[in-house]
């Protein structure tokens, strides 16, 4: 569907390649964060900030190329919106990585297994979003990818509920310990929401092109 709009334009091809790169960086960032969570190496989370900066420059390049005239005007805002949602996922991932560095080990141990599962699902969702984008620009079935992403998001929702239940049993004496763990869990579980939004947005763009 989408390839009809490309019509061999150089700028369009440049944007598509950059979006693919942008999504690949998101996959790397979520994987890197997952490793830090599994190994509990808080220093490892700095890779997320590095990748976020890298992604930021790719995002600027995409927006600039679009404003240079890539794609028909009616579709430009939709592509920009998709990029913004992915960019927000980067921001939230960076926030989660920041908070993780301040989470108290004894509190984290209680919810470690659930957090590992959430971060694994986040990584898998990013890979699926990348596959969904390939399907969007090619001839794949975007609806199937979108459904799979929704299934993953539901799993994260259930895990969020389990984490909240476990945390409610913990006595937290320090305000900052409570705020940090609450923010960390909030950010960690929001990443999947944003990936789902991005996937939904791709599907909406595809529908609008029919």
């Amino acid at each position, binding site marked *: 569907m989408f390839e009809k709009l490309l019509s061999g334009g150089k700028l369009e091809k440049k944007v598509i390649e950059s979006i693919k790169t942008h999504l690949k960086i998101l996959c790397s960032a979520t994987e890197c964060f997952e490793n830090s969570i599994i190994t509990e190496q808080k220093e490892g989370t700095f890779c997320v900030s590095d990748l976020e900066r890298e992604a930021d420059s790719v995002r600027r390049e995409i927006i600039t190329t679009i404003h240079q005239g890539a794609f028909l005007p009616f579709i430009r805002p939709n592509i920009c919106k998709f990029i913004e949602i992915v960019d927000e996922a980067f921001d939230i991932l960076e926030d989660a990585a920041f908070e993780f560095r301040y989470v108290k080990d004894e509190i984290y141990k209680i919810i470690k*297994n659930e957090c590992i599962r959430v971060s694994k699902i986040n990584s*898998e969702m990013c*890979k*699926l979003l990348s*596959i*969904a984008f*390939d*399907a969007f620009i090619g001839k*794949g079935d975007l609806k*199937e*990818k979108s*459904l*799979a*992403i929704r*299934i*993953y998001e539901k*799993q994260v929702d259930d895990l969020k*509920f*389990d984490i909240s239940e476990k945390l409610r049993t913990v006595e937290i004496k320090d305000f900052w310990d409570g705020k940090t763990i609450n923010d960390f869990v909030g950010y960690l579980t929001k990443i999947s929401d944003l990936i789902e939004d991005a996937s939904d947005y791709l599907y909406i763009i595809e529908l609008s092109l029919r």
Partner: protein
Amino acid sequence: MNTKVKEIMNTKLETIQPDATVYDAIEKLVDRRMRSLIVLPKDDNDVYGVITVRDIVFKVISKNLDPHKIKIEEIASKPVISIDKETEIEHLIKLMEKFNIARVFVHEGKQIVGVVSLFDVLSATLIARARRD
């Protein structure tokens, strides 16, 4: 599909003593938002069992029996059907079909470590389909 059971199993498990009442089980199932509980062995010679929402509805509620008076061991299914966590999903599906069951427990050695439901199988299948480029 080459997916192993351990990749899709749910590790959230709840247990109940065989001499508890069905009402205790109902409370646990509602509180934990679950559909089955593992019934612990009575002694070293006993084995694990399972009690599901289905058992409670068909064996107690529909027969107008008092859940406060019925013991878990009276309606639990024993032994529990379980598979090794390294088993592939294809075998799991065959097992579910053969015994006409909606969930299978997963063991690691003698320990029960997880449960896989039909919905987990459906989700895993859809995700695997979507992953194919």
